[in-house]
C-alpha cells in the first residue's frame, strides 16, 4: 500500500509541475467560456442596431400594414428592431426601381429589401434581396408578419368584426419547465443544449489531457527502461494503481480549479445558476468516467512504442467520448429510445451519455444506481485486464505485442 502511494505521489507532483497541466487548467476553461460567450456576444451585437429594410411593393397593399406588424419588435435599448423604407416610386419602371434598390443594398444603405409582386394567377410573390442571407430569427419574424397580414386582409374582406381581427393578432408564447424530483425550474432548448455539450467537452478534455500525460510517461519509462527498475521495486499492480491514483488526484485538482472558476463566474451570463443542476451526479459520472478511461489507457498505453501510436489511441478514445455530442439533438427529442438505452449501459459511452441525460431528462434512482454499479464493475474488470496487458506491453520496446499474445495473456489465470 505504501508503494502505491509513493508512485501516486510521484506521478501527481511530477505532472502538476508540467506545462501541459498548466496549459490544460487554464486553456480549457477559456475555451469553454468562449463557447458560452461567443454566441451571446454575436446575438447581442446583431440586436444592438436597427436593420433598415426596403420594401418594393408593386401590389401597393402590403407596405403599410407590414410596417405596423414589425413595429412590435424592439431591441434591448428599446429602439425598433426594423425600419422599413418604401422604395416604390410612381414615375419609374419596375426594372429601374429594382436596379436602384440593388445599388442601395450593395452600398450598405439598406440591409436588404422585399420585392413584392403578384403573379398572373393572383398569387403573392415575395423575394427578399440582400447581400447576406437572413438569419433564422429575422426570417421567422418576417414570415409571421406577412402571413398575419394576409390572414387579416382576408378577414377584412369577409367583413369580420375588427375586435376579432385584433384578437387573432395576439400570439401566445410559452416557457419550458423541466420537472425533477425536487422542484420545477425553467429551462430552454438552447441552455440545455449548451450545458450538455460543455460538460461532455470538459470530461473529454480532462481524459485527453491526463490520458496523454499518462501514455507519454509510460512511453518514456519504456524507452529508457526505467519501467524495469520500477517493476523490480514493486508489484505491477502497485505501480499501475499508483499511476491511476496519482493521475486521478491530478484530474481532481483540475476539476476543483474549474469548479472554482465556475463559482467565480456563477450568476453571470457566462455561467447561469442552472448550470449546477444535478452537479453531484455529474461529478460522480465525471470521476467514474475518468477512472474507467485512465485504467483503459494504462493498459493500452503500455503496448505502444511511439508517440504517434499514443496520439492515435487517445484520439480514438476521445472520438468515442464525444458520441453524445453527435447524437444530442435526437437524444433531446427522444431520450428513452432503444439506441440511447444501449449507449446508456455501454461502459465506453455511459459517463458522457448519462451527463447528457441528466441535463435533458429525469434519471430514476434505479437508473442512477445501475449505471454507477456498471461503471464500478467495469473499472475493476478493466484494471484486471490492463494489469495483464501492462505486464506484457512494458517488455515490448520496438513493436507492439501481437493480438494472439495479448489474448492469451488476458485469458490466462
Amino acid at each position: 500500500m505504501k508503494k502505491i502511494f509513493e508512485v501516486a505521489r510521484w506521478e501527481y507532483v511530477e505532472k502538476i509541475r508540467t506545462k501541459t497541466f498548466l496549459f490544460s487548467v487554464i486553456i480549457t476553461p477559456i475555451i469553454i467560456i468562449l463557447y458560452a460567450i461567443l454566441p451571446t456576444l454575436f446575438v447581442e451585437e446583431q440586436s444592438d442596431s436597427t436593420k433598415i429594410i426596403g420594401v418594393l411593393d408593386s401590389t401597393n397593399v402590403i407596405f403599410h400594414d407590414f410596417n405596423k406588424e414589425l413595429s412590435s419588435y424592439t431591441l434591448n435599448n428599446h429602439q425598433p428592431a426594423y425600419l422599413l423604407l418604401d422604395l416604390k416610386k410612381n414615375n419609374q419602371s419596375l426594372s429601374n426601381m429594382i436596379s436602384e434598390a440593388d445599388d442601395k443594398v450593395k452600398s450598405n444603405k439598406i440591409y436588404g429589401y422585399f420585392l413584392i409582386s403578384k403573379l398572373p394567377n393572383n398569387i403573392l410573390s415575395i423575394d427578399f434581396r440582400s447581400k447576406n442571407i437572413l438569419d433564422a430569427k429575422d426570417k421567422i419574424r418576417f414570415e409571421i408578419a406577412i402571413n398575419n397580414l394576409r390572414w387579416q386582409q382576408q378577414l377584412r374582406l369577409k367583413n369580420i368584426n375588427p375586435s376579432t381581427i385584433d384578437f387573432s393578432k395576439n400570439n401566445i408564447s410559452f416557457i419550458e419547465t423541466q420537472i425533477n424530483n425536487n422542484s420545477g425550474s425553467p429551462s430552454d432548448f438552447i441552455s440545455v443544449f449548451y450545458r450538455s455539450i460543455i460538460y461532455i467537452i470538459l470530461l473529454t478534455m480532462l481524459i485527453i489531457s491526463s490520458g496523454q500525460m499518462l501514455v507519454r510517461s509510460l512511453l518514456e519509462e519504456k524507452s529508457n527502461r526505467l519501467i524495469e527498475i520500477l517493476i523490480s521495486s514493486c508489484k505491477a499492480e502497485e505501480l499501475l494503481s499508483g499511476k491511476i491514483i496519482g493521475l486521478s488526484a491530478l484530474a481532481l485538482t483540475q476539476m476543483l480549479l474549474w469548479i472554482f472558476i465556475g463559482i467565480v463566474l456563477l450568476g453571470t451570463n457566462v455561467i447561469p445558476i442552472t448550470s449546477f443542476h444535478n452537479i453531484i451526479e455529474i461529478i460522480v459520472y465525471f470521476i467514474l468516467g475518468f477512472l474507467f478511461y485512465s485504467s483503459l489507457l494504462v493498459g493500452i498505453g503500455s503496448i505502444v512504442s511511439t508517440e504517434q501510436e499514443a496520439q492515435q489511441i487517445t484520439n480514438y478514445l476521445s472520438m468515442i467520448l464525444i458520441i453524445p455530442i453527435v447524437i444530442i439533438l435526437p437524444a433531446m427529442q427522444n431520450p428513452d429510445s432503444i439506441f440511447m438505452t444501449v449507449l446508456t449501459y455501454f461502459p465506453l459511452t455511459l459517463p458522457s451519455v448519462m451527463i447528457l441525460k441528466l441535463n435533458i431528462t429525469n434519471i430514476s434512482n434505479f437508473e442512477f444506481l445501475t449505471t454507477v454499479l456498471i461503471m464500478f464493475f467495469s473499472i475493476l474488470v478493466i484494471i484486471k485486464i490492463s494489469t495483464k496487458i501492462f505486464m506484457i506491453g512494458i517488455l515490448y520496446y520496438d513493436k507492439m505485442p501481437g493480438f494472439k499474445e495479448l489474448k492469451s495473456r488476458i485469458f490466462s489465470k
Partner: protein
Amino acid sequence: MLEIQKLYKKYGSLVAVDGISFQANQGKIFGLLGPNGAGKTTTMRMILNIIKPTSGEILFDNNKSLNDLYNLVGYLPEERGLYRNSDVIDLIVYLASLKGMKKKEAKNQALNWLDRLGIKHLANHKISELSKGNQQKVQFITAVIHNPIILILDEPFTGLDPINQQEIKNLILELAALNKVLILSTHQMDIAEKLCSEIFLINKGKEVCSGELSEIKKNFGGQHIKIGFEGGSNFIKDDKNILQYEIFSNYAELQLNSLIKPSDFLKSIIDKTTITHFSIIEPSLNKIFIDLVNKTSEKIL
C-alpha cells in the same frame, strides 16, 4: 546465496532459457556471460521478478522465494535512462522509497553517494542537464542506495570513460567485500576476467560452461604461448603446429597442438623471425568465450 534451479522460459515456440542452474555466492562477483540473444537478460528479469519463469525455481538464502523480496534487490539495466525533467535528488529519493527506504534516510544516503561520486553539486539539477557519464553515476546510485543484498549489474561500464570505469570498478569490488551477491553481465571480457571469481557462460539459452574462473582456465586445455617478434607474421600463418592464433601489432597469442612442446616450438621458429618475447600463458577469458560460443553455435546449427 542465490540459487537458480532448472530455470526454463519459453515465448511461444522460442526457448529463451533452457533449464539452466547456478549458484551465486555472497561476497563474490558472479559473471553471467554470453553473446547477444543468449538469454542473459531473460535470466536477470526472472531473478528480478519482472517476468515469471515457465518452470524452475529461484531461491535465496535457505530456500526463501524472491517473490516478496523486492527491497533486497538492486538493478542496473543495460540500456539506461531516467526521468529527464526530474531533479537528481528527487528521483533518487523516489526510487529509494520504492525500495522501502524512509524519505529522510533516502535523502541522506543520496547525498552521501552523490558526494562519493563527486556530483553532489548536481543534486538539484535536472537529469537532462547532466552529462551522460554523470547520468550513469546517478543510475548506479539508484541501484545501490538501499543497500541491497543482491545486486544485478547489466553492462555497468558502457559509455563510461576510463576514469569513471575505474571508479565504478572499485565500488563494485567494495560492494562485493560487503558480502553481497553480485551478478555482473558484460561483453567486456577483460573486465569480467579482472572482477569475477565465478562465471556462467550461456549461449542460445543453454549453459556452455560454469564455475570458478581459475578452474575454467585450467580445464580449457591446450598449450598457450605469447610471443613478441619483429617483422612479418607469415611464419605464424604457415606453421602446422599452431592450432589457433591471434596476431596483434608486435606480438601474438598462440595455441599449439599437443604434439609439440613449447620449447621445441621456440627452436623451430627462431630462424624464421626475431623473437623479442616468449612466455607460456593462460588462455584469456575472451578466447575461452569465443571458442566455446563458436563450438556450441556449431553444435546447435
